[in-house]
């Protein structure tokens, strides 16, 4: 796919990256906040439950990225008390050149966070080698069937696991999983088992507060928030496998 020649892939992104949000936020992991979060439009996944669907699915949302200008805003935020600079999406991997431009414009002392769906290619992650202090990676689905049904993506498990193995060697890796209604045993449990076997000490953020927005109503089980029963079961699984949960 040659985006410079106007060809479009699944993400529909063109040659230029756009930013739909850039602000200091405190909703992420406690060890990372306050963070100056720069959100790039466009994504390679099509998660029905995407919390920023309108912008994440639209690579033309927001303003054209001026890496120098946004790096200056990030520096100002750091000077004002932000602890990290986070680059996210959508999925920032689809805008690698732009993301790397931002990194290049930031001071070496800035603590950088790469917030990703961990579904990038091996070629993409090689370009990210050594660039980010923290990889904040989603492990969303515990099987390929749910990934295909809810996010339209094939071969999810192998790709994500390969990327997580790589990231664990390159940076401080934090794995996130969003507890989704009706997806505890099919998704969270396999993820928990794999993490416990593969990375027993990895930091895991089990996210509650499923938001039934965007296109989640397409799926009957995603039309409401997570029940207390599902939440309790999810935390029980985490305890059973002695995962290192962080807030």
């Amino acid at each position, binding site marked *: 796919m040659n985006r410079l020649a106007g060809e479009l892939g699944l993400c529909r992104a063109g040659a230029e990256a756009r930013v739909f949000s850039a602000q200091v*936020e405190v909703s992420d992991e406690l060890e990372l906040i306050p963070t100056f979060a720069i959100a790039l439009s466009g994504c390679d996944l099509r998660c029905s439950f995407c919390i920023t669907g309108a912008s994440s699915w639209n690579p033309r949302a927001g303003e054209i990225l001026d890496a120098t200008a946004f790096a200056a805003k990030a520096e100002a935020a750091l000077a004002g008390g932000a602890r990290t600079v986070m680059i996210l999406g959508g999925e920032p991997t689809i805008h690698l050149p732009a993301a790397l431009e931002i990194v290049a414009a930031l001071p070496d002392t800035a603590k950088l966070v790469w917030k990703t769906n961990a579904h990038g290619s091996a070629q993409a992650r090689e370009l990210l080698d050594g660039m980010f202090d923290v990889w904040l990676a989603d492990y969303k689905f515990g099987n390929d069937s749910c990934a295909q049904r809810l996010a339209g993506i094939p071969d999810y498990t192998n790709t994500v696991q390969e990327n997580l193995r790589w990231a664990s060697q390159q940076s401080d890796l934090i794995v996130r999983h969003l507890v989704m209604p009706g997806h505890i045993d099919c998704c969270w449990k396999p993820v928990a088992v794999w993490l416990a076997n593969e990375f027993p000490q990895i930091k895991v953020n089990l996210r509650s507060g499923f938001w039934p927005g965007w296109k989640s109503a397409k799926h009957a089980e995603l039309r409401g928030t997570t029940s207390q029963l599902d939440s309790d079961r999810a935390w029980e699984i985490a305890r059973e496998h002695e995962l290192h949960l962080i807030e």
Partner: protein
Amino acid sequence: MNSKKVMSAKQQVELTTELLIMPDGKVLAHNLTPAMAAVLSELNPTDEAIKQRIITHVGSETKKLLPEHWHSPAHKISDQ
């Protein structure tokens, strides 16, 4: 309140926090700014999850919106 605004290509980046208030009174927050975290904490001072996210490192304009006691060292976020 779950914002469903559609972003146009020309729309400028602006500060945004989205709130979803559930029928049982639970409030979900996304893209939580420091100022909104302070507001939510005022609504429910016993909520530890939000309390941990209160910071004093905000700009002067935002500081004006916060109660005076939020500026005290006791509300500084703990290092993790």
